[in-house]
């Protein structure tokens, strides 16, 4: 077994993420995949507005920040004029599935040849714990204090299930970072999503169920349990689409 250590695709800085935050694991996986595929020098990454907004400080590649929810549109602009570059967005559930719903769906439907890493932590992390489109039924947040579903909030939005019907979509998989096995699977999925882009196959999205101990108001261990028990039930893991 080789030495396991931080890939050089991540900068040598401490992140601003809270202790136990799943973003950190997801960052590492994406960075390792970029390293393993040898694409760092032709990668352009798009940071969301969300807790990951500062990821431009953490990744050793060209990066841009973007208006909240618009990364798929911006990615379209970048990829269309630079089809030989590897373009990926990294987005939270608020960014991708609330304000950015239209941009997500239409980039997917156009089959833009991009990779989307979708961090589903069932909450608006950066703004302090408001209800996300993916907040679970009955789950409390600062804007669903009686538990989601009591006041017409509707059920959680399932992004992979939603996008599956779009003919333009190439690859959809839902993963998690709450057990070592899940982390390995997530990395495989992320690698595939990038490889698809390299191979010109079109729109690939990997959903990552991720811990937000701070806004869930849970300990690390409880957060891991929450993903493994509650979230995986509401958002079953697996491949939702694979055009091959």
């Amino acid at each position, binding site marked *: 077994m080789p030495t396991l250590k931080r890939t050089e695709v991540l900068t040598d800085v401490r992140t601003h993420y809270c202790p136990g935050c799943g973003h950190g694991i997801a960052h590492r996986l994406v960075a390792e995949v970029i390293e393993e595929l040898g694409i760092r020098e032709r990668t352009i990454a798009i940071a969301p507005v969300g807790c990951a907004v500062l990821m431009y400080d953490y990744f050793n590649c*060209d990066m841009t*920040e973007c*208006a909240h929810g618009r990364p798929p549109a911006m990615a379209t602009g970048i990829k269309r004029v*630079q089809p030989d570059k*590897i373009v990926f967005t990294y987005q939270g559930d608020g960014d991708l599935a609330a304000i950015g719903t239209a941009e997500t769906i239409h980039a997917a439907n156009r089959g833009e040849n991009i990779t989307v890493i979708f961090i589903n932590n069932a909450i608006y992390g950066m703004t302090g714990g408001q209800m996300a489109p993916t907040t679970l039924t009955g789950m409390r947040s600062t804007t669903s204090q009686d538990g989601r579903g009591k006041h017409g909030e509707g059920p959680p939005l399932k992004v992979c299930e939603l996008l599956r019907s779009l003919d333009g979509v190439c690859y959809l998989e839902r993963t998690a970072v709450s057990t070592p096995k899940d982390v390995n699977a997530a990395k495989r999925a992320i690698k595939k999503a990038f490889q698809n882009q390299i191979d010109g196959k079109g729109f690939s999205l990997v959903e990552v169920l991720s811990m937000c101990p701070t806004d869930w108001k849970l300990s690390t261990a409880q957060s891991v349990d929450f993903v493994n028990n509650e979230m995986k039930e509401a958002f079953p893991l697996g491949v939702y689409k694979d055009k091959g």
Partner: protein
Amino acid sequence: MGKKILLKGNEVMCEAAVQAGCRFFAGYPITPQNEVPEYMSKRMPQVDGVFVQAESELAAINMVFGASASGVRCMTSSSSPGISLKQEGISYIAGAELPCLIANVQRGGPGLGNIRASQADYFQAVKGGGHGDYRVIVLAPASVQEIYNLTMNAFDWADYYRNPVMLLGDGISGQMAEPVEIFPYKPIVDLPAKDYILDGCAGRKPRVVKTLVLKPTDGLVTHNEHLQEKYKRIENELSLYEEYQTADADIVIAAYGITARIAKGAVSLARKKGIAVGLIRPITLWPFPSDAFATAAQTTGQILTVEMSHGQFIEDVKLAVNGACPVEFLGKGGGWYPTEELILEKIESMAAATAKGNL
């Protein structure tokens, strides 16, 4: 001079963009600018450019954001309600100091309004409809030929200053066809190398395009100061206007775009009637040619602002004049336009009032 061909303002803007090397267009249909995406959808593939019909104006401006970060000349186009939707994106692009062209072929407002020509988005364009202290260079052509010329210039200024440029037209300037000379593009400024673009960090340090400035704590203050310095520089270097028969004018008309054309007609009518009238037509609305008005205010008796809106442009005229002479107003919104005769009437009443010493 080359042969002239008959083209619509909207089409000419597109062709000028293509000539100037624009290779990315994203837009969403809206009357009265539909010729623009239609033309671009056909023309872009011919020049190996990219046309994307976006799912919305929001998506369009953010696609342009991405294309500009990639270093390509790029543009979007819309009309009033669609431009409102782009305001967040414009603020971002200005904050990130990226070049692009945004065309607003104005229609009647507020709300859905109608599709007649209007100049009621002046404040939005010139003061900034988005959030924060940013500026967009705003150009107001008055003829189809000028649309051609200014569109080319727009791309140069955008690159030179790393700033969005807005072409502020209206339903008439976009829809009217005039003979125009299509000449090849030649840059009018020395264009700086695009050393900020994102094209993969091969052989160099990674770059970041961003508008969020958290560190140091007053980083955003510094960034704003930097922007303001740039804006000052643009104000010093770029301020275009046409002056017409102002030398001896007792009354100077202030008008821009289509309105200024009609005002020019009124100047002729007035002169025939023996009233010494002139015209100052700003071509850049921001930077506003304040000096021209300040100077005119020293020698003329009064200024008449004519606009197809309810008193927006007049504020910049008044700010420039700073009380040095009276500034009168003629204007309405919602698709109204002035005729030469109407302007003349207003001028005659102003002249009469002055004669009576009854200002």
